[in-house]
């Protein structure tokens, strides 16, 4: 294994909790919910579901009206998060040095769903025969990554990973490997998702995995690990991390948030939607081995935990299997309780919140009270209600488990 270490030197985010990574994290620590009842625009039939909406995000302000009109919302959210991470890392926006090996790894599940839906509406309902000329390049799943590569003059790998809910985690893992191997000194990695289109919501409803709720209950509709959990809450958002060769980051005096030190992946190879604790455990073990991290070193796990009946208990089974007797001491929380499930972006939000937690020595909570926890999710040290502060945090894991059976786990250590 290479001796190179990988530093996280920049963070960017647009989430239902806030317009920046820090604002989102502070809202998370304060126990606020970013969820609300959402009715998609231009719906042919009435529809409203609990959802995480990036209400503070104004595309016209971020891009200008002309440019915003050429981008799907998933790209708008992702580009904003990516550029914020770049600025946060103290890197120049335009090429000031040779960036032919620098790259980007991005994740998205449904990509340009908004643009596709607009096109179908125009064709099938509006009766039009023509679509806007940029439909293809707006909707394609690599649009966001390509826009970022163009703006930041990144000449190396520019790849987009579409692995459902593991998309961004896998993008981060693959970017991590490129930096650690020496293939790229700097990688921008993350993911974005804008799934709150009428047709996408209808499709998720058909799968019967969405949590119900009305205007009053929507903010607390996402209940991972709780007895009353009834499904996931769809959300939009974007998150990005700048991954950088540690020595390079130190040399330029960059702020190092944390170290990304391991990545593990696996496939359940069993069922498209039913998760497997064995498959998840293999990814967890692979990440620990990759990071040369003993289970006893793990202080915190940012769980995948989406709030489905089966998924949350299977994840706890995988964690207790891999962490053994130490599991009972490991702080675990499900931040999706506050911001919902951003699908292909989820791994990036989890990574950013975990990195901030390691840096500030604080564990963000699962919204809810300890008394509400499901006994079937016991076996770990759940952090509920309010953030846990004042405990040493040395190492943490983030889980991302996708429909299709793909599992991706990232391992982080606090900066020296």
């Amino acid at each position, binding site marked *: 294994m290479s001796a190179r270490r990988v530093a996280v030197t920049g963070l960017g985010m647009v989430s239902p909790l806030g317009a920046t990574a820090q604002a989102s994290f502070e809202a998370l620590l304060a126990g606020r919910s970013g969820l609300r009842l959402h009715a998609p625009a231009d719906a042919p039939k009435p529809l409203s579901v609990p959802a995480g909406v990036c209400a503070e995000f104004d595309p016209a302000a971020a891009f*200008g009206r*002309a440019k915003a009109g050429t981008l799907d919302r998933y790209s708008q959210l992702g580009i904003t998060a990516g550029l914020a991470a770049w600025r946060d890392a103290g890197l120049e926006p335009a090429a000031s040095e040779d960036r032919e090996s620098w790259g980007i790894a991005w994740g998205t599940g449904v990509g340009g769903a908004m643009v596709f839906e607009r096109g179908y509406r125009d064709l099938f309902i509006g009766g039009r025969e*023509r679509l806007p*000329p940029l439909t293809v390049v707006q909707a394609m799943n690599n649009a966001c990554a390509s826009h970022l590569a163009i703006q930041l003059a990144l000449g190396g790998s520019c790849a987009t990973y579409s692995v459902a809910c593991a998309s961004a985690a896998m993008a981060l893992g693959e970017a991590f490997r490129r930096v650690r191997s020496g293939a790229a000194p700097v990688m921008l990695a993350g993911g974005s998702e804008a799934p709150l289109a009428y047709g996408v919501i209808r499709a998720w409803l058909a799968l019967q995995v969405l949590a119900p709720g009305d205007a009053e209950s929507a903010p607390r509709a996402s209940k991972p690990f709780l007895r009353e959990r009834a499904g996931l809450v769809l959300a939009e958002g974007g998150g990005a991390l700048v991954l950088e060769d540690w020595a390079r980051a130190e040399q330029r005096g960059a702020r190092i948030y944390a170290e990304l030190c391991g990545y593990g992946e696996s496939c359940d190879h069993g069922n498209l939607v039913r998760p497997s604790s064995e498959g998840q455990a293999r990814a967890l073990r692979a990440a620990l081995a990759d990071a040369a991290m003993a289970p006893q070193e793990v202080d915190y796990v940012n769980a995948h935990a989406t709030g489905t009946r089966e998924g949350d208990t299977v994840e706890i089974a995988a964690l207790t299997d891999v962490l053994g007797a130490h599991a009972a001491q490991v702080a675990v929380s499900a931040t999706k309780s506050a911001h919902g499930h951003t699908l292909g972006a989820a791994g990036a939000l989890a990574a950013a919140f975990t990195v901030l937690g390691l840096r500030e020595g604080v564990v963000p909570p699962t919204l809810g009270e300890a008394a509400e926890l499901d006994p079937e999710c016991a076996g770990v040290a759940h952090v509920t209600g309010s953030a846990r502060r004042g405990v040493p945090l040395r190492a943490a894991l983030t889980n991302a488990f996708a429909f299709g059976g793909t599992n991706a786990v990232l391992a982080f250590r606090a900066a020296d």
Partner: protein
Amino acid sequence: MLDTAPAYRYVQERLGVDVKTAAAATELASLGVDSLALLEMVFEIEERFGVKVDEDTPPPRSCGELVALIERLAATKP
């Protein structure tokens, strides 16, 4: 007399610029209109005004030129 309001309204909606009060010379590039955005806007103009923008039409460079192009196309619409 030609009704110019629709052209003004389009520019106002699309770019957030009131050409009646702002400088007509405002460059489209300064409003973030690049070649891709212009491509999208040409499509919108064709759909909205029922006109055809020929491929050899010089691209408008300012808000005033954009309004003039829409007015000219609308006036000569078959």
